[in-house]
């Protein structure tokens, strides 16, 4: 599954660059674009000077004086509910993880899928995919791929073997978005391989019989002009 993490932005190239969210986090939030913080404080009653808010009993400080030398500590308190305007789990930083998957575990099924394609798919395309799988193999062998990439490729291959085309596609997308500099050379070959394998005439199964339902979710349209009697009160 795609990871959910937040990295800081590139402060060297852009001032106040916002943090970078992983593909998984962005996909989670996708859909709802409502700003959660949209309330405004009511205006003070006419005539009341806003300089005297009913307020926090903070120590009044004369602006000309230096900050108090003996600054007391914050109020104590152990873990409690975080005072949040919105309740949601905070995302952690990128995990430092290990991955002990061998190159062959990933490459073998990919090459097998490619072989299955050779019968129906153009030779040129197959060769191109094959070339890129070799690049992947070399990169893996030389230790150029980070642990998250290797881990997710393992997952991708498992989804492919179970014919979960959409899930495999989603993993490929998440890798392209999160680790483009590592994967760009060869990932497009894997993408193509998923697409071509999916389109193969049936009869080529490799593993379990789970098949994916229709590719894009389609909203169910109403087909009759005279709709079912919806006895709603107007």
């Amino acid at each position, binding site marked *: 599954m795609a990871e959910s993490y937040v990295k800081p932005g*590139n402060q060297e190239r852009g*001032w106040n660059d*916002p943090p970078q969210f992983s593909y998984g986090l962005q996909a989670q939030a996708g859909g709802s674009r409502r700003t959660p913080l949209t309330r405004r404080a009511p205006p003070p009653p006419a005539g009341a000077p806003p300089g005297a808010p009913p307020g926090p009993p903070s120590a009044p400080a004369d602006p000309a004086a230096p900050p108090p030398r003996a600054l007391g*500590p*914050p109020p104590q*308190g152990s873990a409690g509910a*975080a005072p949040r305007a919105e309740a949601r789990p*905070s995302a952690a930083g990128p995990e430092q993880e290990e991955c002990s998957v061998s190159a062959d575990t990933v490459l073998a099924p990919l090459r097998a899928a490619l072989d299955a394609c050779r019968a129906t798919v153009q030779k040129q395309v197959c060769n191109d995919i094959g070339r890129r799988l070799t690049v992947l193999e070399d990169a893996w062998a030389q230790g150029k791929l980070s642990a998250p990439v290797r881990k997710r490729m393992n997952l991708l291959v498992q989804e492919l073997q179970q014919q979960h085309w959409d899930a495999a596609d989603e993993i490929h997308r998440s890798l392209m978005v999160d680790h483009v500099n590592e994967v760009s050379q060869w990932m497009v070959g894997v993408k193509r391989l998923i697409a071509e394998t999916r389109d193969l005439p049936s009869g080529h199964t490799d593993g379990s019989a789970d098949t994916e339902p229709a590719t*894009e979710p389609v909203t169910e349209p109403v087909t009759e002009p005279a709709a079912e009697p919806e006895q709603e009160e107007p």
Partner: protein
Amino acid sequence: MATYLEFIQQNEERDGVRFSWNVWPSSRLEATRMVVPLACLLTPLKERLDLPPVQYEPVLCSRPTCKAVLNPLCQVDYRAKLWACNFCFQRNQFPPAYAGISEVNQPAELMPQFSTIEYIVQRGPQTPLIFLYVVDTCLEEEDLQALKESLQMSLSLLPPDALVGLITFGRMVQVHELSCEGISKSYVFRGTKDLTAKQIQDMLGLSRPAVPMQQGRPLQTPEQPVISSRFLQPVHKIDMNLTDLLGELQRDPWPVTQGKRPLRSTGVALSIAVGLLEGTFPNTGARIMLFTGGPPTQGPGMVVGDELKTPIRSWHDIEKDNARFMKKATKHYETLANRSAANGHCIDIYACALDQTGLLEMKCCANLTGGHMVMGDSFNTSLFKQTFQRVFSKGYNGEFRMAFGANLDVKTSRELKIAGAIGPCMSLNAKGPCVSENELGIGGTSQWKICSLDPSTTLAIYFEVVNQHNAPIPQGGRGAVQFVTHYQHSSTQKRIRVTTIARNWADAQTQLQHIEAAFDQEAAAVLMARLGVYRAESEEGPDVLRWLDRQLIRLCQKFGQYNKDDPNSFRLSESFSLYPQFIFHLRRSPFLQVFNNSPDESSYYRHHFARQDLTQSLIMIQPILYAYSFHGPPEPVLLDSSSILPDRILLMDTFFQIVIYLGETIAQWQKAGYQDMPEYENFKHLLQAPLDDAQEILQTRFPMPRYIHTEHGGSQARFLLSKVNPSQTHNNLYAWGQESGAPILTDDVSLQVFMDHLKKLAVSSAS
């Protein structure tokens, strides 16, 4: 009044419409006396997760000058199978398919809860979407590498059936022929000479008009599409080759000597892009995506010369009429924008550079076509990368949010006419009985084209009441408006969204209190703001502020309760109470104040202001401020200097920036490291809370905002200090006695002073 607020909110949720007035003054004379025009904010493709589209053609009124769509306001005779158009009163026969309808078996479009309804229609072949990348190669190595990777990544995000093409430019412009054979070819054009559409098509070998690609129609021998698709190929076919081609892109090879800018032929590159699409795929959804890392310095559309010692124009230069290239360059891009929009193609601009890139001259490309404008410092920043990813974002149902080729048609009942629209659209010059002679915004038409839009795109539409004074309105009579939007869905389906609304008329002389109670001050503020910004872009700045002030004073004179010449007696009813504050903040906003912004920055801010929905527009006018402290749960606080307290963390959202500001005490505690001590864990949570809330905004907003984390005394605190109402400045510091809040060093007028002046002017019998 609670009931009107609910009414307003329900209508916005269902129909995506917010009117300045929800009870309409029944005569032209009275309507002009209302000061704020009768107008609405319309979000044509508002996200409606609960609205399944119907799969049949809409039923239209048979009168040729009307053609309104059947809607819940129409009178229906179920026995005779007739319906009466509520706009022109024509009696129409139902089509044969409706033979079975009755009072208990109504079609969806007659039910009141379907005041907004969406139709999926089969109209002609489904043409694929097109994405044409126009890429500047005069970038630093690091930037070019980051851009190349983003483009390669985007190939995985595009709809697989979409067509994609590539044009690169620097000193020359290269149109790349995409093929699956080994050798990559390209056509090279000089960057100094503009070409007509015909010349471009001839030189690229696109002489004959193209037939749109017929996908899945194997019987037809496509002799033409083979030629026209040399430059635009389906992603699923070309992704591997294009990935390699992008990977091999080099920096522009022409050397740039010391003291010079690279020669960048943006004008010709865009011209070729527009001409290429015009010749091959007119009238289908397409995006021309321009990626540029600096200003155009060569050829038509150049914005600055190549000598670094001549800086690019500033507002000062423009005011002193010292911007040599501006008029000609603007005209060049305006012509391109108009041609592109006429073909239904949008132009996006992704400009990443530390200096200006000519957004001022090129803004019409994005504004007329509905294309995006993204401004960043470098392509190697999270701001660009993630904003670019979000162009391809999908909604809850897994469908792309982007839509194309929208045609908005507005119909009104006869007491109303349409004065114009302000938003990312182009006029279609559709004359008719609904069109007013008085123009506000893009007028003289009842139809506009929006080549690219998404569920948040919002237009402002201005109306004119034309009923004569003393002409009767039937008791309980209502006026109606219908918004019909034809568009191409991202799945390439043709769809029609129809929204029909009605509001009551009222005689302003006897029922002013009803009209007053139904005033939507938030919508009114945004509608007036759009008018103000529209004027500012075509007139001098200070005149707009004077106009805005005059309108505000007139509004207060009309609707305030006061005794003549007694400012202290002045009161505004609740439905108007926030309006002066919005205007105060609008006057200080970067939309009307160009000081401290470059012309490109002002263009960028105004671009986004003219297309966002009401909530986001209000955030831009008057930023949101939330306070986090130990004294209670997080709460919104006044955008005022008195809200800046030492033991608080403030989160400010201006739409373009998210600012987190640590009060003085909080900052000292953090420096002392209390958050790392286990017994002060709640302090750690307090520090984290605003970060988590900010994250929700950062994750979804387009474009991605800047993220500023600062504290008391920090230089970046200026972003907060410049936005809050300076109720306390160095001038009045000791007038309040005990200090609270942070004084702002400014000579700007505060809201209190502004309100005092306003009241004085409103109650004065001399005005």
